[in-house]
């Protein structure tokens, strides 16, 4: 699965990141934490410059994970790839 290593790295560093960079966006590639950025766009630009088209993670540093809520999904009007 894409981003598996990066997501594991994020979880392992989450507490530390929350102390130092709350609310920012972490840029991670494989087992490397590249840095924290004010916006997701800035993190993405840095990721493209450094890693090109390779997968990398841009994730908001927050205590509560982001959740996508959609009633259409509940009603079966659309499906998400899982």
């Amino acid at each position: 699965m894409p981003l598996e290593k990066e997501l594991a790295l994020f979880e392992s560093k989450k507490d530390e990141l929350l102390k130092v960079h709350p609310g920012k966006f972490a840029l991670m590639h494989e087992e490397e934490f590249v840095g924290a950025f004010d916006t997701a766009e800035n993190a993405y630009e840095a990721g493209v410059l450094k890693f090109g088209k390779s997968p990398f993670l841009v994730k908001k540093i927050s205590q509560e994970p982001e959740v996508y809520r959609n009633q259409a999904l509940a009603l079966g009007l659309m499906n998400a790839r899982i």
Partner: protein
Amino acid sequence: MPVFDFFHWDKGRGYTLAETGAILQVTIGIPPALEQLCLRDSIPIPSPVSGYALIDTGASASAVHEQIFIDFGVQPIDHIAMSTPHTRDKFSFVYPAKIQFPGLNLSGDAMWPWMRVVGCELKWTTFDNKEIIMLVGRDVLKWFLMVYNGVHSDVTLTY
């Protein structure tokens, strides 16, 4: 305050808003940073995909038909949990995209040259062959005042 009006009407059926929902044209392309990379490396830039977006006040964030990103060769940048009564402990990918709404000529260019969207299997076609490829969620709608005029089959957006 710019006002944008979207009248939903069909020559054969008359008012269509109740049938199609509130839809507006959308163009989805790769993010600017990736365009620059393609230019630098002399790689062809994938052509943007045009279709329609359905305004979905029930969605917390905007979503795009995932196959578009797969065809573009754009990698996901995050995972997001899906929360509905029927989907628990499931995730979907988050993609970066350049989103333009031709009917919302907000700055002469794009209001969202860079946006995070959820990748979903959502493509379908309305009765009049308008292909829905995006759900516009509350992450976009938070910038607008929207009037849904069911009586006159009309949606107005202003910001």
